[in-house]
């Protein structure tokens, strides 16, 4: 019995919000909109494999039309990202256009364009929230995945915002194996800048698929994250991204639900609408905002979203005692690690994911890649750390063929 329907078959009257959300809403609660695939950085775990601008990216007029439609649908705010959205020349215009049309904006940036002047503009604009990405509480850990100089850029942006009087910026951290020991330090950095810490889960999406095995937190680190979130939960944002940890004990604050195509979705730079920001792949492509019916028709009527809002089967997971708390975990994490969508999350804290990962699986081919082929060396993240000390040539070789021809030679 692996085809047991695991969600209610019809929209209930009353009941919990999660039960309601499974059947979708008339408009998304929160929409992510990536304005460009262009980016000055080349983070190794980029969800959207960004780097180069796509020539088909929406024009200023087309973006304004999308904002007009979001206003009509009463989508009260969007998360703008990229790529690096601020490198679009019309970024600041579109930001103003959105807030003037009752579409609040939170945008994610690596901080490259947040100079003193822009920080002052942001501080004076209501309905705008800024999220600075930082994946290490030290330059060493951050630049390892985000590239040389990116730590300093982010910290400078936070300083500029604070000095300009911008209240409550967000410091957005993807939790990895390398930075999981720095959670308190991230909190301190956020506090020092009058900002709020936001932690999210590393997804094996985009270029993240290539580095997930090396970066994703180890099983014992998942417990560390859970304990830290329980201790600090109310003062830290998570975008509800850690619901796969709920089976450790009490549920974390927020919706413990996959919102893909139900309450969230993504509009990419060329106007394609995907089920969620972590699912940029043709399998999760619902339509395009430039089609005749616009975004509204994609959201309300696309075959993909209708399917995501219909009763789901969750295979073997339905038999797990913790199914109600995690509901099978993250669809994108399963998809991009090559696991079946009706099975356990690859980071299932009951250990079912590890067994699944060890078995036969086929990782999907990416359906888009905007990575820059030739990035100047100085701008590339260096995941292989060069040793700064001379190797000890007298030490025993680590393997038979690693013996130094100079071993034993003392000048």
């Amino acid at each position, binding site marked *: 019995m692996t085809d047991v329907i695991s969600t209610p078959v019809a929209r209930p009257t*009353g009941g919990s919000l999660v039960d309601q959300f499974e*059947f979708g809403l008339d*408009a998304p*609660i929160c929409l992510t909109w990536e304005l460009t695939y262009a980016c000055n950085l080349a983070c190794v775990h980029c969800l959207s494999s960004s780097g180069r601008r796509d020539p088909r990216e929406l024009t200023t007029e087309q973006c304004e039309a999308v904002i007009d439609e979001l206003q009509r649908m*009463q989508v*009260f*705010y969007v998360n703008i990202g990229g790529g690096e959205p601020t490198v679009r020349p019309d970024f600041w215009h579109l930001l103003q256009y959105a807030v003037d049309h009752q579409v*609040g904006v939170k945008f994610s940036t690596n901080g490259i364009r947040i100079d003193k002047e822009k920080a002052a503009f942001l501080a004076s604009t*209501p*309905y705008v929230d800024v999220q600075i990405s930082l994946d290490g509480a030290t330059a060493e850990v951050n630049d390892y995945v985000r590239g040389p100089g990116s730590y300093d850029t982010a910290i400078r942006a936070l300083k500029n915002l604070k000095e300009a009087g911008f209240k409550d910026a967000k410091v957005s951290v993807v939790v990895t194996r390398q930075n999981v020991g720095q959670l308190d330090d991230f909190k301190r950095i956020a506090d020092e800048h009058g900002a709020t810490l936001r932690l999210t889960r590393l997804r094996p999406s985009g270029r993240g698929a290539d580095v997930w095995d090396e970066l994703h937190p180890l099983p014992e680190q998942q417990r560390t994250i859970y304990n830290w979130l329980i201790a600090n939960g109310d003062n830290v944002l998570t975008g509800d991204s850690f619901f796969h940890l709920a089976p450790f004990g009490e549920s974390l604050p927020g919706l413990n639900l996959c919102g893909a195509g139900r309450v969230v979705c993504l509009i990419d730079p060329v106007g394609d609408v995907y089920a969620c920001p972590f699912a940029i792949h043709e399998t999760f492509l619902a339509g395009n905002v430039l089609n005749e019916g616009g975004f509204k028709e994609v959201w309300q009527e696309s075959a993909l979203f209708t399917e995501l809002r219909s009763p789901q089967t969750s295979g073997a997971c339905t038999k797990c005692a913790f199914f109600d708390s995690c509901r099978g975990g993250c669809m994108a994490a399963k998809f991009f690690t090559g696991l079946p969508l009706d099975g356990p999350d690859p980071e299932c804290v009951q250990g079912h994911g590890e067994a699944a990962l060890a078995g036969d699986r086929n990782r999907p081919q990416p359906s888009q890649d905007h990575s820059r082929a030739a990035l100047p060396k100085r701008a590339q993240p260096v995941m292989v750390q060069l040793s700064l000390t001379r190797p000890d040539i007298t030490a025993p070789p680590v393997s038979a063929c690693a013996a130094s021809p100079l071993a034993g030679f003392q000048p």
Partner: protein
Amino acid sequence: MRDEEWRLSPAVALRPEPFGAMAYHFGNRKLTFLKRPELVRVVQYLQDSETVRQALSQAGVPESQWPAYIGALRSLAATDMIRPSEGQDQ
């Protein structure tokens, strides 16, 4: 609260949803869900009512359920989704 005049905050927009409505506060950016159509009606009737009591009865809420609805209104008030009508206490 029953005999007071309350209003939807000017910074709040209500978006109809299949189960009721979503309320968004543009000022404090809080999002709240009104999980019953009856509660949505009560909040809408506040606009033209001199008292909360009036809005409740106009919305057809049985008197036995008023305490529950007052409770829901109080939690909406806690995040400034609704606020006491200006001019009443001044």
